């Protein structure tokens, strides 16, 4: 029984190659910085007295933060930005942990103060990942941190597929609606302009491939034999989303980077050799 339990918890215990988690950390905090920096720099528009505001996260913060003096608010914004930069730098695990705690407090407070301009969907996994960095620390070798971030992101992808199933995607060809949006709403200009994407063949193809990737990839990424193929398909899928739809970069930074954590140490080493040989054209050291 203890052996079985040990096997069950193995993905979350011990240490691993630090590079995938370092990539995920940089992508994640960079995504948050790109997402929050504009509203924290142009502070008055979203958080000044008289700003149009919407309550989406913490009602108490929504009701109380407008009373905070502008100087204190400016200081909060600067501290939040500094924490996000510290998270990218990842100087030491302890610094990353503190940066995650401060960044969570700051980003959550500002998102609660006014959720307009800060699209809600991209922030759902961000809160979880900030908590994980805060609780588990920033050690890039930590299997606990890597395993739980991977779980959190793949859970989001799997259940967005399940939500689509429950919403009737297999029978409704929902991508025909998305791909049919006019120039200026949600889709990028080239998607609105390309007639081949507006026909039933393309839209059915996109509907079914979306379901297949969202429902299949999170499972196949966990199986060693199918992992690399699933990772390639998964990455192409999220590249397709960011190339076709106007979604915040944070969405891409989180969802595209996290599956690298599924790679085993030997697969990371193989990938490194491949990149050195094919892309950098340097022999491995």
């Amino acid at each position: 029984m203890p052996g079985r339990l040990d096997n069950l918890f193995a993905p979350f215990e011990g240490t691993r190659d630090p590079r995938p988690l370092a990539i995920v950390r940089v992508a994640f905090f960079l995504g948050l910085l790109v997402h929050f920096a504009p509203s924290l720099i142009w502070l008055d528009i979203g958080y000044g007295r008289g700003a149009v505001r919407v309550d989406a996260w913490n009602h108490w913060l929504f009701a109380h933060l407008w009373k905070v003096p502008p100087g204190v608010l400016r200081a909060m914004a600067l501290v939040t930005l500094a924490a996000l930069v510290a998270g990218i730098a990842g100087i030491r695990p302890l610094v990353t942990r503190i940066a995650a705690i401060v960044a969570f407090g700051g980003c959550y407070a500002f998102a609660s103060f006014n959720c307009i301009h800060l699209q809600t969907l991209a922030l759902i996994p961000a809160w979880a990942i900030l908590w994980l960095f805060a609780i588990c620390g920033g050690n890039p070798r930590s299997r606990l941190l890597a395993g739980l971030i991977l779980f959190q992101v793949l859970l989001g992808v799997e259940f967005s597929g399940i939500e689509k199933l429950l919403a009737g995607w297999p029978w409704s060809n929902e991508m025909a609606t998305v791909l049919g949006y006019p120039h200026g709403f949600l889709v990028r200009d080239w998607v609105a302009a390309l007639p081949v994407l507006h026909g039933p063949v393309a839209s059915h193809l996109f509907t079914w491939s979306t379901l297949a990737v969202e429902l299949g990839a999170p499972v196949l990424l966990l199986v060693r034999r199918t992992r690399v193929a699933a990772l390639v398909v998964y990455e192409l899928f999220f590249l397709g989303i960011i190339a076709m739809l106007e979604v915040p970069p944070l969405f891409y930074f989180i969802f595209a980077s996290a599956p690298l954590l599924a790679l085993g140490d030997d697969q990371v080493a193989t990938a490194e050799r491949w990149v050195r040989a094919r892309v950098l054209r340097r022999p491995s050291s």
Partner: protein
Amino acid sequence: MRRAFIVTWIALGLAGALDHTIADKLLGRTFDLRLPHLMYGYVMFNDNSRRVPVITYARADGERHEAAELDPRPAFGYARARVAIDALFTPVYLRDLCNRNLVDKDDAITIFVDGYDLDVSRDHPAITNKVTCDARPAR
């Protein structure tokens, strides 16, 4: 202790996911799990409206521009979507955007909300609403 944390985290994540899918379908309601990452489920384009707005604006010369240009804060790669979604969920947002961009007492801005109905046409709006603001004193 570590294993208890792992089990708790995974159980909470699953509870949050099931809350917005199975519980919603079976029980007809969701439960407030309080934690921010469990509040909204994992919804990504599962139900897409076939009536959507495209928002532009014009000054006195009548030339149409993207309404996203009225917001000085950059939104890399999603500026138009940000304006459209904020306008959909917060109607007063467009009025605020309009007022903030008046540059002098003679300035006037008209924001056009072209409503497209995909069941009718994706090339021509089915309806157009206007939000107009100027800095002239009210009579």
